[in-house]
């Protein structure tokens, strides 16, 4: 009994003492954010036909897929009974925002991401099914769906349909991540979450984290493959990161300023929290280390003409600190929203478990898993420019 109440300060309702949403629920919006961000980067490049970022178009798509496949796992682990998750589709609950999210996920996975990747890679898949032997040949042949048609006319059709899918994909990716923010933003009993800005902030921060992730994946993969980095492309991606980050930061600050000026009933509670329990994760990690630092680094690369080697290193630092900052932001939303009493009179603490189903070890495994999936996907569907099927075949 004593141990249950320790870590509590002031007045806490009994059912608020222990946090229900753990570290894994922090990971979930983080991972979907990476998906949506990487995808939006790819799609904008395609829709607006930006030639410089062409080298990362496919890489972004495949990265998005690798993370999307892992996205449901934190939820499954948190809830237990993964077999029941299918019931979300079998007996849809139309008035529950959370239950309907299953359909958003499915739509995004199949209609948008898989379809776009398939159309874009179809020529490569067909050629690979001809050149490979053994089990790989079967896999590629299955992926062709039995159609070997890569005539110019067929590829033209793919291009057109793919473009349409990308067009649908952008609002879908907005929906995917905006929806996660919507779920938090619509909890009206929780003043830390309940703001219509929540979906907007989630979406923008998703784009920021996705672009940062692609920036890092591109650099890392080039290093591993010992291929030169296309600096024009990298500079462009870093520039996008800078611009989107500024908009994202402005929105978050708008939210903060609005809350501070409005100083509603809950304000002193949230203010106290930001100065005590969330100080490190919010002020230090999110705002200074994870936002202002990468923004200044990116500004530096824009203001001065630095050598490519220096730029690459600075981009890498900016990318890593950005990812830490966005993770801290998810942490502050999910965990922060549960640390104070709805009576506004007390606070509790959250201690991350280590080797439990929802513990730190599991979180680390879940963050490493997409890297392995990406590695496998990249072997099956190489996203590199030089491995694109040669045009005249």
């Amino acid at each position, binding site marked *: *009994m004593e141990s249950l*109440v320790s870590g509590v300060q002031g007045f806490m309702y009994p059912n608020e003492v222990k946090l229900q949403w753990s570290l894994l629920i922090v990971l979930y919006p983080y991972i979907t954010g990476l998906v949506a961000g990487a995808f939006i980067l790819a799609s904008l490049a395609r829709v607006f036909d930006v030639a410089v970022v062409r080298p990362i178009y496919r890489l972004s798509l495949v990265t998005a897929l690798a993370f999307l496949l892992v996205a449901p796992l934190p939820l499954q682990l948190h809830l237990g009974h993964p077999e029941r998750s299918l019931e979300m589709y079998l007996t849809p609950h139309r008035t529950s925002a959370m239950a309907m999210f299953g359909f958003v996920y499915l739509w995004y996975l199949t209609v948008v991401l898989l379809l776009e990747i398939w159309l874009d890679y179809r020529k490569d898949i067909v050629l690979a099914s001809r050149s490979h032997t053994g089990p790989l040949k079967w896999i590629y042949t299955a992926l062709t769906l039995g159609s070997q048609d890569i005539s110019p006319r067929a590829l033209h059709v793919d291009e057109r349909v793919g473009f349409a899918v990308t067009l649908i994909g952008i609002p879908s990716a907005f929906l995917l991540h905006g929806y996660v923010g919507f779920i938090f933003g619509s909890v009206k009993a929780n003043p830390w979450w309940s703001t219509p800005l929540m979906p907007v902030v989630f979406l923008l921060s998703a784009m920021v984290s996705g672009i940062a992730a692609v920036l890092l994946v591109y650099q890392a993969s080039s290093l591993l493959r010992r291929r030169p980095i296309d600096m024009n492309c990298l500079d462009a991606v870093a520039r996008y990161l800078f611009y989107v980050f500024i908009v994202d930061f402005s929105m978050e600050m708008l939210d903060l300023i609005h809350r501070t000026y409005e100083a509603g009933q809950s304000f002193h509670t949230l203010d106290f929290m930001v100065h005590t329990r969330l100080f490190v994760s919010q002020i230090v990690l999110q705002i200074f280390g994870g936002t202002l630092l990468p923004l200044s680094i990116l500004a530096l690369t824009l203001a001065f003409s630095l050598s490519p080697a220096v730029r690459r290193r600075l981009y890498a630092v900016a990318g890593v600190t950005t990812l830490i900052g966005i993770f801290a932001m998810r942490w502050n939303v999910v965990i922060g929203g549960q640390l104070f009493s709805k009576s506004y009179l007390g606070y509790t603490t959250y201690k991350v478990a280590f080797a439990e189903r929802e513990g730190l070890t599991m979180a680390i495994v879940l963050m490493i898993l997409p890297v392995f999936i990406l590695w496998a996907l990249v072997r099956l569907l190489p996203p590199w420019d030089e491995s694109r099927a040669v045009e005249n075949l």
Partner: protein
Amino acid sequence: MRQRFEGSAHLIRLAVVAAAFVLLFLLIRRAVVPAGFGQYGHFRPAALKEIAAREPVFAGREACAGCHDEIVQAKDKGPHAHVGCEACHGALAVHANDPSALKPTLPVPLHLCPTCHEADAAKPKSFPQVASLTHSGGASCVECHNAHQPKL
């Protein structure tokens, strides 16, 4: 017409595969969704009958009096008068129907009593509360209090 679909054969195949998945889903749905689902709400209507048919596991307050009259009387005079026997002893319908079928295990006071009496700012001030560690110093609560008539 033929001309229009030239070069789209693979898309038609894709559509067929997608349709096959949807069909498979519909078949699975037909097979596994319980009959009448949603009739009264987001649950199986048959669940109501199943739940109603269950044996109650609680005997209720009156059930104990027939055999444990002394305890009932002692309790009724003290501050625990309104606390049901099974709130502390757990569900005992099986025991009350046939005492030889189940001999109840006694609750451990140091675990049981603080579940209600541990001091917590969220409880009404009028409710008797103690910080059990300092109040009893690790001694069992029943060394000083009688569980059934705890007022000293």
